[in-house]
């Protein structure tokens, strides 16, 4: 009896020590075989860049534009569905609950030309278009890529253009140079985005092959797609090493590199440059024409460029907005 009890105690002590030791390691660096040692790359990020402040433009209503606003929306507050996890286009500054960003400033300015107010409502990206169909929102402005698939569900007024970029941890341990290097890797993207479609689907209905299809053609394994509810979750997953890289719109990747003080690195080329569109329900009458006219007046007045420059995204500016300008 006595011996047995001692044995049990000894095993318990060993187990406890193993567990304790497991909690002991905190700071050891990932020792991957990528051969970083000797390079000048340091994995600690620098100081984070300061956040830009929202612009407050005051633009007076233009009567020709106001007349295009449908009667039921005149003088009202338009409710805009937006996923506030996509800095610098739409996000909540730390400690604040109001949404700011390039999309918000632009929508506010367009609203001013139309004589209406706009109110941004935070919602997961993949529920904005369905929310529009259910008339929860009057507009959807959330860095939407205007593509043919989405044009079946809503109308778009194009207002910006952006491509897709790859984000990797600093020092790029997997040596990713092109999208094809993502084949077989764990790659994150936000739910409902074109980025997740290209990782997930063999055919996204655009006519151009998706990354998944290109990997298969190249005889490689398809990327393992990880879809998260918000872009902020995707960032966390990369920081925790749950994914090897992620795909997001170029302005967002650029901004995140700065905001994290270089903890992440933008790698490889920018691909799939496509227009952004303001989503308008198909049954909203002349609302889309009013939005288009408002945007055109901002472009000619120069206010459009001011907004873009404020958020550091002037390279995505366009000069000729159109209705439903999907290229793929």
């Amino acid at each position, binding site marked *: 009896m006595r011996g047995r009890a001692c044995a049990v105690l000894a095993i318990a002590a060993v187990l406890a020590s*193993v567990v*304790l030791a*497991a909690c*002991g390691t905190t700071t050891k660096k990932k020792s991957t075989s990528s051969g970083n040692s000797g390079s000048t790359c340091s994995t600690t990020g620098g100081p984070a860049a300061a956040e830009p402040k929202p612009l407050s433009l005051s633009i007076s209503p233009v009567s020709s534009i106001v007349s295009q606003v449908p009667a039921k929306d005149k003088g009202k507050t338009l409710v805009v569905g937006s996923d506030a996890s996509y800095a610098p286009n739409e996000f909540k500054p730390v400690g604040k609950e109001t949404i700011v960003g390039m999309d918000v400033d632009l929508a506010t300015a367009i609203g001013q030309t139309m004589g209406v107010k706009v109110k941004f409502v935070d919602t997961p990206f993949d529920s904005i278009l369905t929310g529009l169909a259910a008339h929860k929102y009057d507009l959807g402005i959330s860095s939407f890529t205007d593509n043919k698939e989405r044009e079946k569900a809503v109308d778009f007024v194009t207002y910006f253009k952006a491509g897709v970029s790859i984000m990797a941890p600093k020092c790029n341990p997997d040596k990713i140079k092109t999208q094809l290097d993502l084949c077989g890797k764990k790659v994150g993207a936000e739910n409902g985005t074109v980025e997740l479609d290209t990782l997930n689907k063999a055919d996204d209905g655009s006519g151009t092959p998706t990354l998944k299809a290109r990997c298969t053609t190249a005889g490689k394994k398809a990327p393992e797609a990880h879809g998260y509810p918000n872009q902020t*979750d995707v960032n966390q*997953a990369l920081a925790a090493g749950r994914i090897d890289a992620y795909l997001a719109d170029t302005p967002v990747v650029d901004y995140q590199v700065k905001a994290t003080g270089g903890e992440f690195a933008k790698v490889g080329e920018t691909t799939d440059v496509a227009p952004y569109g303001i989503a308008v329900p198909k049954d909203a009458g002349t609302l889309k024409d009013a939005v288009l006219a408002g945007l055109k007046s901002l472009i000619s007045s120069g206010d459009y460029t001011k907004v873009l420059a404020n958020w550091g995204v002037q390279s995505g500016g366009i000069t000729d907005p159109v209705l439903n300008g999907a290229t793929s």
Partner: protein
Amino acid sequence: MVSGTEVAGSAAPERITAVPVRHPGRWVSVAVLALLAAMLVHTLFSNPAWRWGLVKKYFTTGTVMHGLVATLELTALAMVIGVVLGTVLAVMRLSPNPVVSGSAWSYVWFFRGTPVLVQIVFWSFIAALYPNLSLGIPFGHEFVIFDSNKLIPLFVGVVLGLGLNEAAYMAEIVRAGILSVEHGQTEAASALGMRRLDIMRRIILPQAMRVVIPPTGNETISMLKTTSLASVASFVELYKATSDISSSIFRPIPLLMVASIWYLIFTSVLSVIQYYIERHYARGSSRELPPTPMQKLRAQFVQRRDESSA
């Protein structure tokens, strides 16, 4: 008995026409409920927005099937962790050793006191806290070092999140079961010279099962649905598989129906299993086992036959 003959001679009293008590309220309530049911069935089939065609189309799609399997795996593993660890915790909690019972109390306090959603996200992002885990001497040499993300892949992270949380609840359920067994049982077993752990394993726990089973079934059914929280960590289970489809075809309702129907099918199956397990453990306490639905049905038919032959 003169009076008796007199009564017999007089006119016999009329036969009482017994009228059953009327229950107009019952008929009204049946009518109202039947009307509501008819309205429900009608709207299910007349409102095209339900899009039953899409429900049918995606009901057995490959990704939905994979999600379903993942949901069942998560439920099973999380419940196994929950029941085993929960039982250990309950026994620890009742230990006379204050350090042991205090530890069990702290575990339950922490894991029951934080949301399961937070725990799932925590375990899936564990590498942000500990990039590596190792085996070795405490505060000393480390023999083996593991990459946390390899040691705890996403699936394991989610299972841990769900299972460790469940263990806290199961610990309380098992503890209630243990306390429901009369103290005399323990005393009798001690009198026979049994050791504490043996008494627990051979005398107390089997009798506690009767009390433990119904809430455990409840927890299992609840777990089947709680697994949908794993979607926030990008783990593809039934709910995420369906919402991935709906976010690319912009039709949320039919896909929610697909998920709901599958959840209903499996919660129904689980309820049936729970019924039979409960019946099994009722052997010790009731003289006659409650009838199974099949036995009830058979009894009804036998009764009818007896009535008609009489």
